[in-house]
């Protein structure tokens, strides 16, 4: 592997900037060149504005010369999933209905990144409105897995994970509603963290399912993920569901090597019912490694696991049907022109018919159905009660363990097209990740090996607001293995 700047982590780039051996403009140029060289095949980006990125880098370099640098992220490019609002930049959610939308404001995490001098770098592809697990539901194009271009990168933050894996950005932000950071991170061999619900403000994140959505970091190592999480965390008066709780220094906490006796839970529902143990063999190897490091493992049960997918697809689609009602062809979305001047209801119907892709239509209609008169109690209320039980399973488990380990995904990345005609099969592939969203707890996916050349992720679930603990646990594995220094050949 060469010594080029684009192969370096955000932490390494930050050190190079501090020592004065490289400028932010040089770093940004390296990433522009990298994208121009490989994104024809990876297709992680919906768009990028090279001139704007260079201008941001130039300002960062000028600050540094004057001794006014804004910290570790100053001058470091951060890729953005295309559902985060950046003032005067496109925000498409990979949907035709928002193809010409320009955001009039900055979301909170974007304001925070700007305040820390980060270079906002590109708009990354995703499943339309974050609905999907493969990035094949994008209304723009399909992204490829950098480890095998015939395969999916996972989703919905597939562009973010593929861009980081392909070294087109050192770090990126994604969003996770049912696994949309962790599963693509697992498929692309990078680190992805879904923070505790409420840790990061959702203001300026295009809403999919508001009680489940969280923004989080995707990176090539835990140190970078911790750095980015610190930049975006904290209470925000613009998001009434963000929680006013102290934000630790995650980077420092993740690097803590002091002795601690860890007890890890292995939920039998995640392992016994796994259809193909060979597909997740590196997860078993990782558990053996942790045992060799003195970790204690306990078999636990999360008995309501089998109801998580059903509960999730009621709650997520119900909230989506409500959130996506705003895309109506009237105020800020494409309008079906042929119907202009006709009944306003026809404008809604036709604009949404033209603007939404198949999966979005499917979920909005399912969500409308489960909320419709006469069915609310049977579906939405029932699912919310099941959600209480799923959370209490985790609360019980965390009384006797510090963290829980599972595979992130039942299989490595599949070939493109596998789930095209069978949405239920795609929904079921989220089985290991969605419970964390329902319970609101943090989850990390960490590269732990390969099956037939494809990356496999170990998922570490933690107690609410204990992201630093799962970083620490993950770091012990990361330090003893070389996965963070391995790159796909492109």
């Amino acid at each position: 592997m060469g010594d080029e700047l684009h192969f370096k982590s955000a932490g390494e780039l930050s050190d190079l900037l501090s020592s004065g051996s490289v400028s932010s403009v040089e770093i940004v140029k390296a990433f522009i060149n990298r994208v121009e060289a490989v994104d024809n095949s990876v297709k992680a980006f919906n768009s990028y504005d090279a001139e704007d990125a260079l201008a941001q880098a130039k300002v960062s370099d000028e600050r540094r010369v004057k001794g006014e640098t804004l910290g570790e992220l100053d001058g470091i490019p951060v890729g953005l999933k295309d559902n985060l609002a950046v003032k005067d930049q496109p925000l498409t959610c990979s949907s035709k209905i928002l193809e010409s939308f320009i955001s009039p404001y900055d979301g909170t995490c974007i304001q925070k990144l700007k305040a820390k001098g980060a270079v906002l770098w590109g708009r990354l592809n995703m499943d339309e409105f974050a609905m999907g697990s493969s990035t094949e539901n994008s209304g723009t194009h399909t992204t490829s897995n950098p480890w095998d271009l015939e395969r999916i990168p996972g989703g919905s933050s597939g562009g973010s994970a593929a861009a980081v894996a392909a070294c087109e950005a050192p770090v990126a932000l994604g969003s996770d509603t049912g696994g949309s950071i962790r599963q693509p991170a697992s498929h692309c061999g990078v680190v992805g963290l879904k923070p505790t619900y409420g840790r990061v403000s959702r203001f300026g994140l295009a809403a999919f399912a508001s009680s489940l959505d969280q923004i989080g970091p995707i990176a090539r190592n835990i140190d970078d993920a911790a750095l980015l999480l610190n930049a975006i965390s904290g209470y925000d008066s613009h998001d009434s569901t963000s929680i006013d709780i102290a934000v630790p220094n995650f980077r420092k906490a993740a690097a803590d090597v002091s002795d601690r006796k860890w007890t890890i839970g292995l939920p039998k529902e995640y392992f016994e019912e796994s259809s193909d143990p060979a597909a997740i063999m590196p997860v078993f190897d990782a558990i053996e490694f942790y045992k060799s490091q003195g970790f204690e493992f306990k078999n636990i049960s999360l008995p309501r696991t089998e109801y998580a997918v059903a509960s999730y697809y009621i709650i997520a689609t119900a909230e989506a049907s409500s959130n996506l009602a705003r895309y109506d062809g009237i105020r800020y979305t494409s309008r079906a022109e042929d119907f202009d001047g006709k009944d306003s209801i026809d404008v809604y119907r036709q604009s949404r018919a033209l603007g939404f892709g198949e999966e979005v239509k499917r979920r909005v209609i399912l969500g409308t159905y489960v909320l419709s008169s006469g069915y609310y109690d049977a579906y939405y209320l029932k699912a919310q009660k099941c959600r209480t039980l799923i959370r209490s399973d985790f609360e019980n488990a965390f009384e006797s363990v510090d963290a829980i380990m599972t595979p992130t995904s039942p299989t490595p990345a599949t070939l493109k097209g596998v789930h095209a005609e069978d949405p239920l099969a795609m929904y079921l592939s989220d089985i290991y990740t969605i419970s964390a969203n329902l319970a609101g707890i943090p989850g990390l996916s960490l590269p732990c090996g390969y099956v037939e050349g494809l990356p496999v992720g170990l998922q570490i679930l933690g107690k609410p607001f204990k992201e630093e603990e799962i970083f620490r646990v993950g770091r012990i594995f990361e330090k003893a293995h070389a996965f963070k220094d391995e790159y796909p050949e492109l």
Partner: protein
Amino acid sequence: MSEERSIDIEKVADLARIALTNDEKSKLSGQLNSILEYINKLNELDTDDVEPMAHPHSVFNVWREDKAETGLPIQEALKNAPKQRQNMIVVPKVVE
């Protein structure tokens, strides 16, 4: 939840304000019915005395100071409108 419940695709698509082609209707109703069949699994779970959970944390009414804040300037707020005139969004006629 009755076992034979099936989705009335015309009615629900109308509620969702999405025009569907006939092909979409038949494809979607088949898929949605199999998803609903799967979702009916939740009936196995006794939830009689369980409180519903709307949100992961116990956050109740969140108030802010009742102070005026500057909003987006009109032109910024309107810049994505598909049709506008005199600082207003042009819409189809809704009253006779």
